């Protein structure tokens, strides 16, 4: 694909359930980022991958959040025991290098009832 692909585009779940969000970056992009965006706010950093390893996970809010990128391409953001406060749009972005010029997907909108 030409751009960053995120699935699902919308996810509605109940409080306490487990959720996985998937990101397929632009082919060849080694850097991958997850951000979270609440209504009326800018994106908030969660985690950054360089290749397969999580180079910086300082933005993950607590240990219910976890992300993997096992083969250095597709990444999955995993949220355990979801809470209503986790409701937001989760954005994935990739880049060729760590220059700040990021290519974003359209996001996965998570609603926790």
């Amino acid at each position, binding site marked *: 694909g030409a751009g960053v692909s995120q699935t699902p585009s919308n996810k509605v779940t109940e409080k306490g359930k487990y959720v996985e969000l998937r990101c397929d970056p632009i082919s060849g992009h080694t*850097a991958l980022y997850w951000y979270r965006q609440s209504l*009326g*706010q*800018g*994106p908030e950093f969660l985690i950054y991958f360089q290749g397969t390893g999580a*180079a910086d996970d300082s933005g993950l809010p607590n240990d219910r959040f976890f992300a993997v990128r096992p083969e250095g391409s597709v990444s999955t953001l995993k949220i355990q025991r979801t809470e209503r406060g986790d409701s937001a749009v989760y954005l994935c*972005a990739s880049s060729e290098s760590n*220059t*700040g010029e*990021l290519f974003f997907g359209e996001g996965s909108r998570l609603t926790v009832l």
Partner: protein
Amino acid sequence: EDQVTQSPEALRLQEGESSSLNCSYTVSGLRGLFWYRQDPGKGPEFLFTLYSAGEEKEKERLKATLTKKESFLHITAPKPEDSATYLCACLFGSARQLTFGSGTQLTVLP
């Protein structure tokens, strides 16, 4: 604490009415300031990178400028299709990730 603040939160312009959006930052070791455009239901789209005070970048009706404390996004003779949220972000110190402001929601009325 490193902060990125955008103003105004929202701006309504008539088509052809030029204006500016502001992004002020208090960060240590700024390595780059970035402007993104975000349409409803979409991810942000990269517009410009500015690296040093005095630098300017232009694209169609948009011009971004940078000083030691703030950046401006000037919009000349805007059209309705320029309506979007404009996000400013900073890359600072040894951080690998961007720190975003809250954005300015621009509406251009025909």
